[in-house]
């Protein structure tokens, strides 16, 4: 399994994040977007590991050898969503066209008063979902986040949107999952990302594109223990000022029998991986796991 992502600059280059924030707030989106081209070019040339990760993924998703133009487009898509995060976080949503698919799924869940797991991924941006959900619609959402791994991003978030910062449950503390349990009991939807494996986390191997890789079982196991539904979400950047947010019902209840527990967990995680692959094929440049996702490189 690959944990290379924990070392990627994306996760905590304070200077880069501060610069993007400054540009976004003081220069404006059109100039900011123009500056993304040289920034993308710089990363395309200098970030060799990320480029290799991009190439491996695009080869599968496009079904051909990716060109430099494809790699550029991939990194540019990521940079554009980072810039837009600042606008989302500061509540400047009017400049975006956001289309929501399957929104009724969420509204029904909220109306039921029951908590659930909202399971996403690093395909696209979850910022549109969480800012609209938490700060515009005031839906009962909490977000499980690895705060320690991402201090720079966390401080930025605190400064830009304190309401959102309060909705975060930090991962990796003894009380983390007790907090999750209490929140689900009070009817909160718990946002989590299910496509990266953290240190020491239990995993299951799932087919993803043409070969297997490790996926965390945590989010599905959590839903099983709390006997709550799982709803998938995908927030995809469509270029320009357009974002699509998709909601899909994955499970009403994850029932596990003691003897078949591993097998049943595995098949639920596989369904998640299948939906992730489906959307990743349709929006390949939104794949923001710029590392050796299938752990194919020798360590």
């Amino acid at each position, binding site marked *: 399994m690959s944990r290379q992502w924990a070392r990627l600059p994306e996760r905590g280059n304070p200077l880069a994040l501060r610069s993007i924030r400054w540009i976004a707030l003081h220069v404006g989106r059109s100039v900011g977007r123009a500056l993304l081209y040289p920034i993308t070019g710089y990363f395309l040339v200098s970030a060799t590991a990320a480029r290799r990760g991009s190439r491996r993924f695009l080869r599968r998703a496009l079904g051909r050898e990716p060109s430099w133009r494809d790699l550029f487009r991939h990194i540019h898509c990521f940079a554009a969503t980072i810039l837009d995060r600042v606008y989302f976080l500061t509540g400047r949503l009017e400049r975006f066209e956001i289309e929501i698919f399957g929104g009724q799924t969420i509204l029904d869940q909220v109306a039921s008063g029951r908590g659930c797991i909202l399971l996403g991924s690093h395909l696209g941006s979850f910022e549109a979902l969480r800012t609209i959900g938490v700060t515009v619609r005031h839906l009962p959402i909490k977000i499980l986040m690895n705060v320690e791994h991402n201090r720079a991003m966390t401080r930025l978030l605190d400064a830009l949107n304190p309401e959102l910062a309060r909705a975060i449950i930090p991962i*990796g503390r*003894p*009380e983390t999952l*007790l907090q999750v*349990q209490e929140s689900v009991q009070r009817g909160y939807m718990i946002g989590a990302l299910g496509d990266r494996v953290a240190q*020491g986390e239990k995993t299951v191997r799932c087919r993803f594109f043409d070969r297997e890789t490790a996926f965390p079982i945590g989010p599905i196991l*959590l839903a099983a223990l709390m006997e709550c539904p799982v709803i998938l979400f995908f927030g995809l950047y469509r270029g320009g000022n357009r974002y699509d947010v998709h909601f899909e019902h994955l499970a009403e209840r994850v029932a596990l029998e003691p003897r078949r527990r591993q097998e049943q967990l595995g098949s639920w995680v596989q369904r998640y991986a299948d939906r992730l692959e489906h959307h990743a094929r349709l929006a390949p440049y939104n794949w923001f796991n710029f590392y050796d996702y299938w752990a194919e490189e020798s360590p």
Partner: protein
Amino acid sequence: MEALTPFELEVARLLVETLHLEEIKPEDIAPEEPLFGEGLGLDSIDALELALAISKTYGFQLRSDDKENRLVFASLRALSQHIERQRTR
């Protein structure tokens, strides 16, 4: 090796059964050894699963705002003592 008290053994059985630790015998768990991280190597989902089993068996809920959580899960002995203090059945 230090022997477990009868109640520690009962909690150890609950732990092994709940977390499907097939390769571990309840009576072999060292009472002062950490349950999480090193030691038995349990993770936070195990902690939740254990907390749910404890609430079902002993009739009280472990709470996230309890300052003692770190101590409660520190070892089998600490956990057993906490349950003895809090149990309602």
